[in-house]
Every structure is written in C-alpha cells, then in structure tokens.
C-alpha cells in the first residue's frame, strides 16, 4: 500500500560536491562506486518553515518513532516515514497523511531529535486550511458545529444540561447557586450529549453527591474546549472558544476545576495559561483518587470482572497520570485488573485524538487496515478481559463500536466512573 503521490526523480551522480568539498568518497572506495542520490529538500522545508513545525526538519531517520506509532501498526506511518515521503515528493499539506496523526505523542517520547508531531501537525493542518487545501468533510462539519452550536456534535446549546435528569441526584448549576463552590465540574460535550457519555456524567454526579463534594456545573453556559479542533488545525476557532470559556470560568468563584475528559484537562491546564487562565484543573481520576479512603467503604458491591484499562493519550503521555485510574479500579471489590501489552507510557492510541474523533471514516480509508480503536479492542480482548475500562469520553463511543466490529461483543466498554457507580449502587 504505497502512498498516492509521485516520487520525485532521484538523480544519480558520480560525484557530489558540497560547499566546494568533494564528498563522493571515490578516494576511499572499496568495491565499487556508491549510488549518490540527490533529493530536493523543498517539501521538507515547506513544512519546517511553518511556525511551530520547525522540528520536522530535525529527523535523522533513525526510525525509533515508527516502532511506536499507533498508525504504523495498522498502516504505514510515523514521523520518519512522513519525512521520507516529503523527501521523495509528497506535499504533506495536500496529502491524506496530513490527517492520520492523532497527536498521541508516543513518537515524541522516543525521538532522540525531539521531532514534535504534537506541534507539527496542528501547524501544518492550519496551513492547509488557510491555503484552502483539502479538509475532510466530517472534520469541517465538527468545526462548523462547534462554531455554531458550541459543541462538535451539533447539539443544541440549550440542551447541554438536559442529561441531569438521568442522574437522579441534585446537580447544581453555578449560576442558580449564586455562591462560591469548591469544585467547578466541567462536564464536557460528549458526557453532556452522547448517550454513552451521559451514562458516565450521571455516574459522576452520583459519586460526587455520595462523597458530599461541594460542586456545581456551568449548565447551559458550558461550551466545548475545542482543543481537538485546535490540534486538527482550527486554531482560530480554538481561540474564539477559549476567549468565551475563560470569560465564563472567571465569572464564578470556585477553588478547583474537575474535568471529565483528558482533552479538556490538556486545554485548560496546558494551553489556557497562554491565554491568561491559570487556575487549578484536575482530571476526575486524579480528583477521586484523593478520596480513596472515603470511597472504599462505599464500594460495597463486588464487580466480578476481569478488567483491562486503556490509558488515554491525553491523560497519560500528555499529562502523566497513569496511576490514579488504576488505583480507582483496584479499589473496586471483585475486580481483577490485567494489563494490555501496550500500556502506560507506551499506551496505544484509540484514534480519537487530534481531531481523529471526527475523521473516523476518512482515516479508515487511507492506507490503514483497520481503525486504531479496532486494533486496541482486539488487544483488550486478547488479555481475556471482559471489561475494557476507559477514562476519556471519546473512548466509550469509539470502543463500543470497535468491540462489535471486531467480533468482541463480550467485552463491555465502561468508563471508570460507571464501574465505581455500579459498585456503589450494586447492579
């Protein structure tokens, strides 16, 4: 499955002279003359010239990245390969390859040259968008939905807090409360609107109530964090949403923000400071792990399951949280926790990051044998687990789909919140 572009013609030379020095090596040739290829560096420079994408040019082709790139596992990818493709004629801003990277950051972890796809990809994608190049239609729709409706699903803003009804416990809205709270819970778009996301949101509401946490949500004032839209290239949209969100966040008094999703964590904790917002933000797993002592006696009902946990890239690699989710799972009586082969720092990406969430059909068609979520679902099944536990709202929908499409329906996909809730209430 070769990428679809025409290779630049390599020029074979007998002698190569660089800056006046003959580097052909004919003076120490042992057997016969080497073939010397000359490539045009233009298409590499084109990317490296984009602000924030400079490190693309650092690559020295060692290939450590390819070994860990989740897209390469199901296809032909990784920074090294992209560099090589560019060297041989691929204009990344026009190629389907531009949209395959999930910004999972596994390559960055191993790259000796700090080639940083988490910065390169958003910059190159933004360039493609600015130049009016091809942008997958599903992704465009998500951008447009976010700009118009405040969430990528295109759901009505006024229904953002409709999920509360299914919680069965009070979920105060900070505006109505009219006082300071210790925890502002940013629910997120998928937990607010996606049916499987709502299950997790309702579970979280019940857990917070049981722990007696003084919390409130933003309700109809909450809007998408747009971090994945930024990574997919729509920085302008991200900035627009950021301005609105910071204004909303600062309208109210609270001590700490708890987010349901790792992408929101990344946005508010790592990116918003650049826009003047520096307040404490934690993922729910980190937050709940602090309450383990109080939580344990409440987890009365055993969940007799063999569970494997999927590390979300934006919780693990991007934000260094590997243990809290595992501690929460281990606190549930009856649970047998097993690890997949790729875990923690080397966790395999579900394919939803960097805008992949809204390119599911597009990426599935380009030089890949299966979706990343499907690959991961198979890995989960191969551990013998009957539950795939997740901690990111993108993943519930992705894996629920993937276990079915790979014939692993016997594996239940559940958010850690749902598992804790089950153990608390019994089911």
């Amino acid at each position: 499955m070769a990428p679809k572009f025409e290779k630049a013609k390599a020029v074979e030379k007998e002698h190569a002279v660089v800056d006046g020095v003959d580097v052909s090596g004919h003076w120490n040739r042992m057997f016969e003359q080497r073939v010397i290829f000359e490539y045009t560096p233009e298409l590499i420079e084109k990317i490296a010239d984009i602000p924030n994408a400079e490190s693309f040019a650092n690559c020295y082709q060692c290939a450590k990245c390819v070994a860990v790139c989740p897209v390469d596992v199901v296809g032909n990818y990784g920074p090294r390969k992209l560099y090589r493709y560019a060297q041989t004629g691929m204009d990344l801003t026009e190629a389907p390859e531009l949209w395959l990277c999930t910004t999972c950051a596994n390559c960055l972890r191993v790259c000796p040259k700090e080639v940083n796809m988490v910065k390169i990809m958003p910059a190159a994608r933004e360039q493609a968008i600015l130049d009016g190049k091809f942008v997958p239609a599903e992704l465009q729709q998500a951008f447009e939905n976010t700009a118009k409706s405040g969430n990528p699903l295109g759901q009505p803003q006024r229904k953002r807090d409709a999920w509360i009804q299914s919680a069965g416990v009070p979920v105060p809205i900070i505006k109505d409360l009219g006082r300071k709270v210790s925890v502002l819970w940013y629910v997120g778009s998928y937990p607010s609107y996606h049916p499987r996301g709502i299950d997790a949101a309702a579970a979280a509401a019940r857990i917070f109530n049981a722990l007696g946490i003084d919390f409130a949500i933003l309700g109809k004032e909450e809007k998408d964090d747009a971090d994945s839209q930024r990574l997919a290239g729509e920085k302008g949209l991200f900035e627009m949403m950021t301005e609105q969100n910071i204004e909303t966040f600062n309208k109210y008094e609270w001590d700490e923000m708890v987010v349901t999703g790792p992408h929101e964590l990344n946005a508010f904790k790592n990116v918003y400071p650049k826009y003047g917002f520096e307040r404490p933000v934690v993922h729910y797993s980190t937050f709940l792990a602090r309450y383990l002592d109080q939580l344990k006696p409440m987890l009365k009902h055993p969940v007799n399951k063999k569970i494997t946990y999927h590390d979300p890239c934006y919780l693990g690699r991007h934000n260094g949280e590997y243990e809290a989710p595992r501690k929460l799972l281990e606190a549930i009586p009856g649970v047998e926790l097993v690890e997949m082969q790729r875990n923690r720092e080397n966790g395999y990406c579900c394919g939803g990051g960097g805008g992949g969430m809204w390119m599911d059909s597009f990426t599935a068609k380009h030089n890949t044998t299966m979706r990343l979520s499907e690959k991961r679902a198979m890995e989960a099944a191969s551990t013998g687990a009957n539950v795939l536990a997740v901690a990111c709202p993108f993943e519930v929908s992705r894996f629920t789909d993937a276990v079915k499409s790979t014939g692993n329906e016997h594996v239940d996909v559940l958010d850690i919140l749902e598992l804790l809730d089950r153990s608390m209430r019994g089911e």
Partner: protein
Amino acid sequence: MSNDILVITEHMDGKFSDVSFEMVGKAKELASALGGQAVAVVVGGGVSSNVFASDSTIHIDDAALSNFNPEAYGKVIEALVKEKSPKVVMFGWTVTGMDVAAWLSARTGAPLAAYAKDVRVEGGSLVVSSQAYGGKLMAEVAPEGDMAIVACLAGSFPVEAGQGSTAGTTMASPVDAGSLKVKFVEAIKPAGGDVDITAQAKLVSIGRGIGGKENVELAEELAKALGATVSASRPVVDAGWLPRTRQVGKSGLKVKPKLYLMLGISGAPEHLEGMKSAELIIAVNTDKKAPIFNVAHYGATADLFEVAEAMLELL
C-alpha cells in the same frame, strides 16, 4: 407630460395576481386626485386584459412576452414611459416587479419609492408610506421630480376596487426579441413529494429564532402534539434546515390555516404576505417590538424554547 398613472400589472399562467388589482384600485383614487387617468398596462400574450376597473388599459399583446423576462419587460415599459410621460408608474414589489422598478428608476432618473404600503396625494404631490427595515420602521417619503415610480407591497390595498372591465388598446412590442440578452428557457415546476402545507389546518411555523437545525426537532415534537405540521420562514429553508416545500411567504406558499403558531419569526413583509389571513395567529418572540405583534391575534414576549417545552409538557 401627463398626470396619468401607469400600473404595471403582472400575470402568470393566464391569471393576474391580486396585487395588480390592488394597484389599479389605488391608481384610480390617485388619478382622480391628480387629474389624470389610471392606465392598466398588461405586458405579454396569453391573457385577457379586460378585467380591470382602470380608466384605460394598454395591452402589449405579444406572445414572445408571455413569460416574464426582466430585460424585455424593462425595455417595453421604458419605451411606454417615454411615450406616455406619466406622473406615476406603479409596480408590485414582487419577484417580477422588483426586477424592473429599480432598473427603470436608474434608467430614467425618476425616483423610486419601494416597499410601499400606502400612497396618497398631499397638496398636489405624492406621499408614500414605505415599510423599511423589515417592518421595524415606517418611512414617509416624497419622490421629487416629474415622474415617480412606486413599488407596492402585495396586500396593501383592497383587490375589489381594481376589478372591472375596460377594453384594452393593443400595442405591438417595441422590443426585438432576437436582440435580447436574457432568454426564457423553460418553467420550473414546484417539487412535490412533501406534505402540502397549504392544505393543513394547523401549522407550527418557525423562523430564524429557532437558531439551528438541531432545534427543528423541538418544533416537530410540538407540532406532533398539536396535530399540526411544521412550516417556516425563508431563512430556515435557505439554511437547509427544512425543505423548500415548507416555506411560507412571498416566494414560498400562501397558507390560510385555522391555527398559525409562530415561533421566532419577526414578521417581515415577505413573510406576512403568505400567512396574514390565517384564522388564528399566535406569535412567540423575544423581541417585544417584533413587527409580527402588529399582525398576530395573540402574542407573547418569551423564549420560544421555554414556551415550546412547557407546552409539550401540557399537551
């Protein structure tokens, strides 16, 4: 120069539109105040022109002009205006009149008063009341100079006053059809297949206030609970949130249901044209000054979503 008033009538499929009669009626009134004649002008063949209460009728009875053609109609009317030097030329502010009125104004230098709701003679000069800014303001305007062009909103005057019979003088078209740059190719028939909103007794009609496609569902639920059908203003259709078959108004369908429940529609003249004669009009709009409240029987200054959701709970 004369004190005559030329009324440019309009017809389609052999029938004159109501606005043609409305203008003829009004022109008679104005002509008597100005000391001139009300002249009905019929452009095109395939229609009997002996239906107006005008003082006289001029029929440019040319089969080549039977289908509306903005360029040809403009040229015919320009030539006629040159020949007759009328005091006033009246057009309907309609999908056809709109194509010619402003063009004629620019060609002849005569001022145009558009969106006219009323025309009268004050101290020998013409004063026009026009509906500006989507009906939010009314403007009293006075066209200066020898000739004025007035483009009237449909439904502004009674139809009956213009109905009658006056045998027409037939005229040949001064325009060479072969030299036209705009050529009529074929008629486009309305697409069928969807519900016929003109046949519904109850309509829940939504406007731009509905905010987005994702909210249309709410209107559909409410309509279902009421045994009604969802219709809409033009922006909703243009945005692709509902099919064209659901559009009420000037360029949509004219409806006359027993109930017309309006959610987030401002009441622009083009919309009113399509629903004014509904038996019971109830409007919900957050803007207490929305023009629709001057037309609706009942109104409420409220958020449509809150009202619709609360109604759903009660139904």
